[in-house]
Structure formats: C-alpha cells, structure tokens
C-alpha cells in the first residue's frame, strides 16, 4: 500500500512541477509511515518539505499556495491532528471557490491515515470521514486496496478542488497488485467487490478488507450470498451503483468504522430508503463503532469497534434470520 501511494506521488511530481509535498517528517525522516520514502532524494528540499508541528499554519500555507497556482499535497501525520487545522480545511479550503464567486479555486490534497490502529486511545483512533463529507466543497476519498490507492491519489492530485484523502494506518504494509503503466481511477465510481443476491453491504477502506469481507466469507459458508460494494469515494458517492444493487437484493447493510450519529452510513441509509423505498424488504441495518470515545484497554477497544460477529448479526437481521 505505501509503495502504491508513493508511486502516485512520485509519478505526479515528475509529471507536474507545481506539485509538492509538505508535512511533518515527510522529507528527511522519509515519512512517519514511510509513504514518502525516497522523494526527498529525488525531488529535493524545495518540493519535499518538512514542517514543524503546526497543522493550521502549514495547511493554510498549502491553501494559499494553491490559490495562486501551485498544487500542494499536504500530509498530516494522522487525521486526528488535522483537527488543529479544521478551520483551514472547512472555513478556507472548502469555501474558497464559492465565497470568492469562482475567483480562486484550491487544487490541494490533504492526505493522512485515519481510523483506529491498536491501543492508541480516544484521540489517536478516530474515523472522521463524516466530518469532512458533511462539508460542501470537499471531496472525500477512502481507498481499500493498493491499486485503488494509487489510481485515486493520482486523480486527487490532478483534481482542481480540495480532496480529503483518508488512508488507513494499519494497511500501509498490505500487498496487492498494481497494474503496469499509467492509470487513474475516477471519483464517484464505486466497485462491486463481490457479486451476491441476498443482501447488499456497502463498506469501505480497512473495515471492508479486515471485517466485512471476512464476515461475508463466513456468511457464504452458511449459504447467504452477499453483494459487497466499495464506493471508494465517500463524496462524490456512487449512488447508482448502490441503488442498482439494492434493487437486486432488496436488503442493505452499511458497515463503517465511524460513529453512528450523523455518520456516512446515516446518509446512505436515508438516500436509499428515499430513492429505493419500494425495493426494500427490510429495514436498513448499520454496523458502526459504538457511540463512545474509543478506550485504550484491548477488550474495550475490540468491543467498541465493528467486528465480524457484528456484521454477521446485522446481515441476518436484515434477512429476518437474526
């Protein structure tokens, strides 16, 4: 995964000299998670820039530079720390084009790992995609495979809008095939990860790979056929792909890492019940993190986060088998 992200940045930096990378430890240290490995050596300190711990300051510098023609990639060490720069992302990056009546657009990528790892406690474990997806003017991307990560990051860098690119802290070491040669993956185009007939699950990023697909495998052994959809981008969302699947299976479960209240799943649930009301044979089920700050202790952490059992239960409930 980290090589895929690295390749995307490397290719785009060599293609366009307006693209540069800045963030904490991205240069000399080669990245806190080694995503920017080798980029300093290749592109030099003018384009791969270590910042002090000043998220608001360097996020704002990125936005200002983007307003006047550069195309920054701003790395936060994790999305948790981006909250220090939330004003910059929400009040400045997201609103600049609209508020300036089209005068200034902001082509910038903010990327960082999101979600829980292990035993990091409440402030270092947050899945914040709904916070960003809520805001008009931001695009939110959450790849679940190395192939998607590379293609989507290249698209993000070429996009003329602020893009929130959420990686997963525990997926950087994962392996996957990356196509030979140049490719990009468009935003708003999801993927059917697995075809099925009984229930549709919408899930993304780490939870899709680590929880949902494993649960689906077990359900299959019990004779339940699940269609799995990875939207890949949270905003724009590939509504048609979800609707078509729900019209086929008549049941929907949304599995995500974030909290339940006003989460991404709540929005999907609303739109599906509204636009596919007649197609639904059961209430839409959601699997989320428990509605609490994530505790440190292993057993409590496990109990709070989505897991395979919770997904199996939700699917069975949607099939009235629970």
């Amino acid at each position: 995964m980290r090589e895929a992200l690295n390749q995307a940045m490397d290719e785009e930096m060599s293609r366009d000299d307006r693209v540069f990378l800045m963030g904490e430890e991205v240069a000399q240290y080669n990245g806190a998670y080694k995503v920017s490995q080798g980029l300093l050596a290749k592109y030099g300190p003018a384009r791969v820039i270590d910042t002090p711990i000043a998220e608001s300051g360097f996020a704002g510098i990125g936005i200002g530079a983007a307003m006047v023609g550069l195309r920054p990639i701003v790395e936060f060490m994790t999305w948790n720390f981006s909250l220090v720069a939330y004003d910059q992302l929400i009040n400045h990056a997201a609103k600049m084009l609209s508020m300036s009546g089209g005068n200034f657009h902001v082509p910038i990528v903010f990327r960082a790992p999101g979600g829980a790892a292990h035993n990091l406690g409440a402030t270092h474990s947050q899945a914040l995609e709904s916070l960003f997806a809520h805001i008009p003017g931001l695009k939110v991307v959450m790849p679940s495979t190395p192939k998607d990560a590379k293609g989507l990051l290249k698209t993000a860098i070429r996009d003329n809008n602020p893009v929130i690119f959420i990686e997963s802290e525990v997926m950087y070491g994962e392996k996957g095939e990356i196509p030979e040669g140049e490719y990009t993956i468009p935003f708003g185009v999801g993927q059917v990860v697995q075809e099925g007939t009984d229930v549709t699950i919408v899930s993304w990023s780490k939870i899709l790979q680590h929880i949902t697909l494993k649960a689906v495998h077990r359900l299959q052994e019990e004779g339940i056929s699940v269609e799995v959809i990875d939207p890949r981008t949270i905003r724009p969302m590939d509504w048609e792909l979800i609707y078509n699947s729900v019209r086929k299976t008549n049941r929907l479960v949304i599995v995500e890492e974030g909290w339940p209240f006003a989460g991404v799943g709540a929005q999907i649930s609303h739109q599906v019940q509204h636009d596919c009301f007649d197609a639904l044979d059961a209430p839409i089920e959601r699997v989320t993190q428990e509605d609490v700050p994530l505790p440190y202790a292993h057993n409590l952490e496990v109990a709070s986060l989505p897991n395979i059992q919770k997904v199996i239960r939700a699917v069975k409930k949607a099939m009235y088998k629970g």
Partner: protein
Amino acid sequence: MKSTEKEASMSQKIQDTLLGIPADTLLRWYDEMLLIRRFEEKCAQLYGMGKIGGFCHLYNGQEAIAAGSIGAIEANDYVITAYRDHGLALSKGIDPKNIFAELLGKSTGTTKGKGGSMHIFDKSKNFLGGHAIVGGHISLGAGAAFAIKYRGEKNVCLCFMGDGATNIGNFHESLNLAALWKLPVIFIIENNKYGMGTGIERASAVETLLKKAAAYGMRSEACEGNNVLTVYRTVKAAVDHARKTYEPSLLEIQTYRYRGHSMSDPVSGHYRTKEEVEEQKKLDPLTVFAEVLKKERLVTEEYFETAEKRIKKDIEASVEFAENSPIPPLEELYTDVFFE
C-alpha cells in the same frame, strides 16, 4: 543665498518631506483615501436603509494604511486581509461599482453576490480576499508568499490583520513558518486598539504588538498610520527587503476606526468614550495629508473641492450601477461549489 539656490533648497526640502514621490502619485493617494471615506459613508447609509445585509465593517479612519501600503507595491503583488476589506480592495484597484454591487447582493458584484462585505475577492487584481475568521487568513498570505518563492519570482504578499488577530494561534504558526522558510510576506497589523469591544490591554499580554516578531527573529517596524507618507515609507522598506532577501517583516501601524466594530455596533459606549473618538478624529488621515499637500504647495483649496465633486459623482454612479444590476439567478446557487 541666491534666489535660485533658495529655490533649489526649498525643492530639496519638499523632496525630503514627500520622499521623492511624484506629485501625481501623491494626489492619486489622496483621491484614493477620499474615495474610501466616501465609499464607507455611503455604505453606512445603504446599511441603514436595509440595502446591505449581514455584517459590514467600515474602514473610516484607517484610509492612509490602504493608500500608503498598496502605494508601496506593484500590481502583480498580492494582498490579503480580514473582513474590514473595502478600503484595501479599493486601493488594489477594484472598481467601486462592483464592490457596491457585491454589498447589495447583485450578480455584478465582485463575487457575484456570494461573498458579501467580508469576502471581497478579485483574481485579476491579485486581491486574495476578504476573510472573516479572525487570523485564519494569515497562513494563506504566507502561502501566497510560499508560491512566489517556489517559482523564484520577486513579488511580495501584503497580509493585513487587526490587532485582535495577533492573539490567535494561526498568527504565531504563520509568523514562525514565514520566518523559518524566509517567505516574502509582509504582515501588517492595523492596530486600531480594539478587537470589537475588547481593548488591546485586555487582550494581549504585550501592548507593543511588534514585540511578537521577536519570538520568530523577524524583522519588524512600527509606524503611525495617520500619515500616508509614513505608512508608505515603512511598508516600502519591508517590501524592498522582502524582494531582495525573501525575508518577511511584521509591521505594526497605529490607527483608529471612527465607526463601531461593525455596523451592528455603536461608535462609542461600553468600551470607549465619545471624547476619545473625537480626540482621535483630530488626526484624521485625510486632513493630515491635505495639510501636507497644501503646505508643500502641490495643490490649492480648489483641488479638494473638485476631488470631492468628482468622487461624489463616481460614488453615485457606482451605487446606481449596483442598484440597477440584477440579483443572482437561482441557477447560481449550485455553481462554484466544485471547480470543473
């Protein structure tokens, strides 16, 4: 002393007082300051009539900062400021008719009616806004300067803020980064003594805001803001330094706003007395500059009368343009959210 020598000496003195600035430039600055004053007075009137909505922060009393600072840069240099932005927008060359139209929420406004008073923008003039979250834009100004240096250009960015902004974290992060990376940005504090109704002594541990530059080893200079020539000289020195070295400066310019914080606030009351405001008005930047121009015999009284008439006409025509402009069509609601 022969009369020719006397004349030469006199002319040298004028040159010194006027910093060698050509007469037509000086008169342009005066006109600009007068335009800002009359523009803001018209805004107050239109606001009172209910034609301008929302928050509207007027620049009356601070005009010399706009004219002197913008006078010290070139057209392709950047300017960014906070929400008290009409004056700087006018000085940067944005047509008053488009600003009025913006304030009236019309489609011919600077941002097609989407930004309002606090969010004036003009890409063609390198005017980067108009920002309404106190201190939030300071890093954007540093960002424009970052881009200048990244591309190896020789421009600068003037980043204006009020005294209240110097207490927020983003101010300090931006100053540190600009000094650390040597970015050609000039941070200009327009110190009008009050952050809304909170006096500077109740908001900042140091009342000499300039001292805040010391923490970042940044070049700094303070000046009095009622004299456009003093402002020009101070800003010009910082601009020249930035062009030569890429190094930033922090400038603290003493000024005073004659109106309330916004149109919703009284001129005086809980936080300052009427007498204080009246006392400050004795140093009105327009009067101060008019006296200089008269003393140096660059103009006669007649000039000021003509200027008043000309600007009054300009303001009237601009307001008429704004009034007659169409409101934004509803289709505009969903444009400019994402850039295609």
